[in-house]
């Protein structure tokens, strides 16, 4: 039996194994090398792979991500870290106008095999500029792929999949999950766009991703105690998302709640709800409901953050209302 790993160590292991497997893989980011990463997700990698392939960069997000695009167009497979997802705003040109479009606008001449890893999420009272969940922005950009590993096993295998994928992938980790313990399987399939049934059920479907998986599990336990069997789909990939898995579950349960930590308005849940409404309308016995954060910035104070984050209570209430 392998020893259980922390989520953050599974990330480091995936980076290490990817670098060992492919000399084109390299890491760049602020304090990722000598200090082993602000969250220790790159610990030991400088020693293992040397300073050419594991680089500390200055605090220059726009240019470090832009440089990753250039390196990817010149034979490398860079994995860049943006310390908090909130700081990705500074690198948006590189991601949106360069990485996402190079293949298309150059007539298919090239791919941009790069990964941008970044942690999102609240729960640490880190305040309005260190807690945001911005993944929907990237899912909206043709040319990008977006993945949110929720488990330790996925932290490993989905990061490996992202690094192996030929196109730019935004890997969104949740910093509240970094200490989570679990096992990895280094031989697990590295699939792009495949969801996972986290818990089977017949009465309602909860579609979720990232740390909200754990709120969904708590909700499903409470519903089960009342005789309601909820099925949980851990989407894993936001772009592309697994329509087949979601529609199959809707065909079984006829009721859907989509839950995520990001702001509900104009979010990932809105897209999935709209697709269910247009493509699986006949399977539905109730309106599709969403559980997400309110339309406001996340605040620092404990009471404000607690009221903001979607929790099991809200998921339970939503599932019950689809059954009412």
């Amino acid at each position: 039996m392998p020893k259980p790993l922390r989520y953050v160590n599974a990330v480091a292991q995936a980076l290490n194994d990817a670098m060992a497997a492919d000399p084109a893989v390299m890491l760049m980011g602020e304090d990722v090398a000598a200090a082993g990463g602000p969250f220790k997700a790159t610990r030991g990698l400088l020693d293992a792979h040397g300073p050419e392939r594991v680089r500390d960069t200055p605090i220059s997000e726009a240019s470090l991500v832009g440089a990753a695009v250039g390196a990817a167009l010149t034979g490398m497979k860079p994995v860049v870290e943006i310390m908090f997802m909130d700081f990705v705003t500074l690198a948006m040109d590189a991601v949106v106008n360069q990485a996402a479009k190079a293949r298309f606008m150059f007539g298919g001449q090239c791919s941009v095999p790069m990964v941008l890893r970044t942690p999102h999420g609240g729960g640490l009272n880190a305040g309005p500029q260190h807690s945001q969940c911005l993944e929907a922005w990237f899912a909206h950009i043709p040319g990008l792929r977006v993945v949110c590993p929720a488990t330790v096993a996925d932290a490993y295998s989905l990061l490996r999949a992202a690094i192996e994928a030929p196109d730019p992938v935004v890997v969104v980790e949740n910093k509240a999950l970094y200490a989570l313990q679990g096992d990895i399987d280094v031989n697990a399939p590295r699939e792009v766009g495949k969801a996972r049934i986290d818990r089977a059920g017949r009465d309602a479907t909860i579609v979720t991703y990232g740390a909200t998986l754990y709120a969904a599990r708590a909700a499903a336990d409470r519903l089960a105690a009342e005789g309601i069997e909820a099925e949980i789909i851990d989407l894993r990939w936001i772009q592309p998302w697994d329509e087949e898995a979601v529609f199959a579950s809707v065909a079984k349960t006829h009721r859907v709640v989509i839950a995520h930590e990001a702001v509900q308005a104009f979010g990932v849940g809105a897209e999935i709800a709209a697709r269910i409404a247009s493509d699986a309308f006949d399977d539905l016995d109730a309106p599709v409901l969403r559980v997400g954060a309110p339309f406001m910035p996340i605040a620092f104070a404990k009471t404000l953050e607690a009221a903001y984050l979607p929790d099991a209570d809200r998921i339970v209430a939503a599932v019950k209302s689809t059954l009412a």
Partner: protein
Amino acid sequence: MPSSAAQADPIPANSIPTDRRLALHRTMQTIRATETTLSRLFADGEIPGFIHLSVGQEAVAAGVVGALGPQDSFATTHRGHGHVLARGVRLDLFFKEIMGRAGGICGGRGGSMHVADLSLGVLGANGIVGAGLPLATGSALAHQTRRTGGVAVAFFGDGAMAEGALHECLNMAALWTLPMVFVCENNGWSEFSPTSTQFAATLDKLGAAFGVPHRRVDGNDVAAVAEAAAEVVEAARGGGPRILECLTTRWHGHFEGDPQRYRNADEIAGLPQNDPLRRSAEALLAAGVEESALAALVDSVDAEIRDALEAARADALPDADAAFRDVYTPTTLTAGA
């Protein structure tokens, strides 16, 4: 690490009157005692989130902010407590904010990294490295356009020199002759990395490229900072942007709880030898101030902090419905969620 005194431009000694020096000393003492209190509160779990303290850097805050007039403005950084305190933010509102209470200066929504007091021209601490630079540039633009006579100051760390924002703002400020001072608090560290691994140029040369005059001072000598700041602030008022680089020392970790394994033990042990407060106290004693007067100053600052902390502890936690109301300014429009 910069060895501050060695690299600084020479300053004419003792040209600041004693009562002015005492005021600067009191400001530094307020910052030191507040930061030390916050360090303890953080360790005891009374402060949520994370905080970056400015212990060892008090002379920069006291000297620069002390040189500003009431019409002036500034934007600061994640390590901004000292600047805000030096500007005279109400201590109880400050403590409430850092502790996430309803009565905080920002209603407990921002915390340590977002302390702001617009009534004092404080455009906020900032969670984004380098983000204060364009804010201060725009503030200077407003001073110029509105003919307020005001100057805007951008505080930034040595780590922020690598952000494009500094380079872009130097260019705009120079092009438009903005009344602006770029104040670099060079503490030699950018998180866990020494400045030498972060920035290939030097700030004086960078300024020269844009024609922006640069002055470098010993940032742990409050009199030197105060004199240099007074000079550059007045020069900027009519004459366009200036850079003031203050060589200083970060005593604590990057954030509270940072074990600083990346830092040489001798460097940490040597920090108190360059203590801006001790140096200021020695200068005051040499100028004839009684030891008892300095002790009384410490006591009175401590009493102020005790009262502010007591008020903060007694304050309620913020209410979520009230916070929601400030997402937009009330108008006849309603925003959809």
